[in-house]
């Protein structure tokens, strides 16, 4: 028979072995749960360098922005908006009926417009432009909640783009609404660049046409197919 060491030694040995099982449990827990602290940096290497990255903070400026905004009243080269057709959708004091000359209407342009419309406009106006986007629906339920609109909500139904008044807007005016907004709708000039806003305006005109078309505007060879597929 093997003789065993004293009790206390066995006890300490078993404890030590059990203690080895603790770290894996701790690690597994750390892996499975989110943590509100960033990992401790023991070795800095060159992880943090004395340079500024986009949207980082710089305490030297009063507003804390490392990325400086343009000084008030200055105009960057090429952004003076001298071509009112391009920058405002206005030609000779009237809404432009055409796209600026630098932007021929092609299938690509309309597809680009469709993509951008779906990103920036569909949330309120809906994919079809009927003013039934998710945000509009949600905001309208807030407006009609039984104890009055919550937290000062004052939403106005997003206009259907197939409303006869909107249908009569020239493409230049649609562009201007996308840029500067109208009444309660904010402008998207800061979020969407100028070419994309024109693409959106062109697409909106296309969408309006598609929802208000007569059989005469369909090429004869496609009319049978339309009758079969569209109810």
């Amino acid at each position, binding site marked *: 028979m093997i003789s065993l*060491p004293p009790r206390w030694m066995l006890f300490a040995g078993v404890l030590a072995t059990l203690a080895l099982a603790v770290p894996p449990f701790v690690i597994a827990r750390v*892996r499975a749960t989110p943590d*509100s602290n960033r990992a401790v940096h023991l070795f800095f290497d060159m*992880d943090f360098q004395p340079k500024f*990255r986009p949207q980082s903070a710089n305490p030297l400026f009063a507003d804390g922005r490392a990325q400086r905004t343009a000084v008030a009243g200055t105009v960057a080269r090429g952004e003076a908006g001298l071509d009112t057709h391009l920058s405002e959708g206005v030609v000779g004091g009237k809404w432009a009926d055409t796209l600026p000359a630098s932007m021929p209407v092609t299938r690509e342009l309309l597809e680009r417009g469709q993509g951008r419309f779906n990103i920036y406009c569909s949330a309120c106006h809906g994919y079809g432009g009927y003013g039934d986007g998710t945000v509009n629906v949600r905001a309208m339920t807030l407006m009609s909640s039984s104890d009055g609109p919550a937290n000062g909500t004052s939403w106005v139904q997003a206009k259907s783009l197939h409303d006869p008044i909107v249908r009569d807007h020239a493409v230049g005016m649609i562009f201007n609404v996308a840029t500067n907004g109208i009444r309660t709708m904010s402008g998207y000039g800061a979020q969407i660049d100028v070419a994309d806003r024109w693409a959106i305006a062109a697409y909106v005109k296309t969408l309006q046409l598609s929802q208000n078309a007569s059989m005469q505007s369909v090429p004869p060879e496609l009319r049978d197919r339309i009758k079969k597929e569209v109810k």
Partner: protein
Amino acid sequence: MSRFLFPRWSNLLLPTIILAATTIPVYALFFVAYGFSPKTLDVGYQPTQVVPYSHALHAGELGLDCRYCHISVEKAAHASVPATQTCMNCHTLIRPDSPKLAKVKESFTTGLPVQWTRIHKLPEYAYFNHSAHVSRGIGCVSCHGRIDKMEIVYQNSPLSMGWCIECHRNPDVNLRPTSEITNLAFDGTTELSVDERAVLKDKFHIKPSDDCSTCHR
């Protein structure tokens, strides 16, 4: 004078030492590899933001496209976090007096930015570019996970060099058409066949490099 005699149980010391000498290095190796891996240390970082903004509500339920807010993601290296004006497009009218939006409103009146806490952050010696990935068929979900299900954003991938290289050596499984880039529910591995992915790879001329100078420039 009494002589010291080793007790009989000390015969057990030798096997114990051998056992310890073989298992402890394995244990230590495991401890370092598992415990100090970026998957343990970096994944799951979830700071509390000053505004309780929810992607699950805005991107998930309301279905806003990522690019509505992260406007530069397709054009630039940096995927900008939105300006206060972007929030105010809706929140001048939707719940403007909500206490949860107080900080946003304050920022809108003072012109000072909202102090969002940055989550994803590479060491500053590494170069990363969003547009190179996003416009070439790599969707947000491959790197950021299901953001549209997160109430509070957390880091979903280790962002370690090994992780970057793993995809650069085998990008095929992550490819998707550019129309599905921000569709986080789209899974290229089940919805596209191997051939379709090969076509995409051809179309975007995908040949990611693992030269050091690609990311350390």
